[in-house]
């Protein structure tokens, strides 16, 4: 019965009749909520040299980090990608960590993002989704030496760095690298939102091939 009822309504809309106000209201609520409730997924691709990740549904420019950004603060997110063999038992190689430095122009209401030491220059004028997308798209782990048919597992971690550590993290020196490792190795506090996504088993030969691109937006 339910199925036929739904069909009936679709038929009504196709016929160009008015959709009820309640439906509009529900749709209006459902669209933003669906974005918020969407379960983050981890998608992996290969460009011939490096393994790239994509995290549809993962929104990290929210909550306390967003409040700090709206207050003209610099917020650093720390990412780590680790490749494992044997169902996350043994890391294949050293994890790759990056610092994602985000700020928010309070007059233009747009985000600026950068990866210190990365090949891409700082990018400005982005919306929240564009900024998140830029950050994740510019993360990669070198797959050199990994056999195309070897099975591996991938873990992606993202964490908001504590505010007090920001100066040390954006400083381009050996101290910042040690700081990144130090922060990622300890348990996150409640005011340091963190996300962990995993996927596997994967094979390089099975991964969708992407064009090797310059790491810019």
């Amino acid at each position, binding site marked *: 019965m339910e199925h036929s009822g739904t069909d009936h309504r679709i038929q009504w809309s196709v016929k160009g009749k008015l959709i009820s106000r309640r439906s509009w209201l529900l749709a209006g609520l459902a669209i933003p909520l669906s974005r918020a409730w969407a379960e983050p997924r981890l998608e992996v691709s290969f460009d011939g040299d490096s393994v790239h990740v994509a995290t549809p549904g993962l929104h990290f420019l929210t909550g306390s980090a967003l409040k700090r950004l709206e*207050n*003209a*603060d*610099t917020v650093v997110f720390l990412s780590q990608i680790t490749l494992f063999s044997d169902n996350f038992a043994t890391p294949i190689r050293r994890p790759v960590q990056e610092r994602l*430095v985000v*700020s*928010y*122009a*309070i*007059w233009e209401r747009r985000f*600026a993002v*950068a990866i*210190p030491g990365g090949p891409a220059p*700082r990018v*400005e004028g982005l919306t929240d989704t564009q900024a998140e997308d830029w950050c994740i798209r510019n993360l990669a782990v070198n797959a050199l030496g990994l056999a195309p048919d070897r099975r591996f597992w991938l873990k992606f971690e993202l964490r908001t760095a504590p505010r007090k550590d*920001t*100066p040390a993290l*954006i*400083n*381009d020196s050996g101290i910042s690298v040690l700081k990144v490792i130090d922060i990622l190795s300890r348990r996150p506090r409640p005011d340091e939102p963190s996300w962990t996504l995993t996927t596997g088993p994967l094979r390089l030969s099975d991964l969708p091939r992407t064009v090797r691109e310059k790491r810019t937006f």
Partner: protein
Amino acid sequence: MRYAWLACLFLGGLLSAGTQDSEFNVNTRYMVETVLVSGDGWSTDVVADQDAKLSSGLRKDIAALVGQKLNPSALDELAKRLRKELHARTVEHHVLRGKSPDYVQVMFEVKLRPTEFDLSVPKFLYASKSGWSGAIEGTATIKHNGFTLGLVSDGDDLAERYAGMVARYENNHLGTDRARFRFQFESYHQQWNRNTVDRAPYAETSGAYRTRQNFEPEVTLTLARPLTLSVGASFERFQEPLPAAHTEAANALISTLRFHRRLEASDFQHDLDAGYSLRAATKLLSSDFVYGRHRWEFRYMLTHGKTVVIDNLTGGLISGRAPLYDRFYLGNSTTLRGWNRFDLDPVGGNRMVHNSVEYRYGVFQVFYDSGAVWDRNETAMVKHSVGLGLRQGNFWLAIAFPVKDGRADPIFMVGMNSY
């Protein structure tokens, strides 16, 4: 030399930190329009206001943000300094859009601790003639209310050595930040110098007393930012042992007008303090003594790097017959240093004028005091003294010489917080 290198490294580190943040934070392109510091019920514009809550150094550093590009890491550092200086629980900074495009307003929001306990030593002194003097106070602060309990033994200020306790309630926000209320209770036992006991009582003052209590409610109003007016009453009673033990009262209306102004020009800082206080004991308040006590004070301090020059001028006049504790005395740790007040005038006077000039360079200081204390219908005899000493923070030590014919008998003094 080693410290110079360390300082260079430290400053270099700060500069590089600033550069890193400006490289990544897009807001560093904006100019700072205003800086506000606000707390629980108060707020100050650091450029326009001369708020006494903040030290001059910190206020200067915060004001220096205005007209410069925004530096978020500098805000963190200033918030830390504010927290330390104001003993605050937290200091958060907010950056808001300014009135003009590409300008921002910076606001430091201070949240004070709801309850705080402080132990302080308002006075600690040893003088070779008068011995030890000291006061210790404990203050519990709950929001705007301060409850203080203290112990005192002071043989420096007056003709008497008074020892006892002080209890005080203060409310520094009486509906508005411009009104404060204070109620103080003091209870002391006295010890007297033989010279004073032999001279008092006489026509101008009371006799020596054994105990003294004072109840003093007072309201302080900020009339215009550097000008404050305090009004209140003092209900003071004391017990004279002779001829038969009896209690006398000196109940008075009290008022004080104070002015403080700090002027900063290039490397020079000028501090001006002026005050006038009146204590009017009247029969209307069932006082046994009827008198008016006027006191004027003017203080000027010039600071230029390590060099400080101070001039302090005070004058006083009493009309009527005032008890011993309300008379004027010279020859202690702040006036006519080097003179023993019991040699000058063991019962003080109802007229007084004093000037002190002090020069400080770093920790070294030299001073020259001159003044006179006398009773009406007497001739004023001006005395002089000179001295030198060392001062570091609140600690000081000095040796002072009276300028007189014959043998100069110096007085050695060491103290904390007392002048």
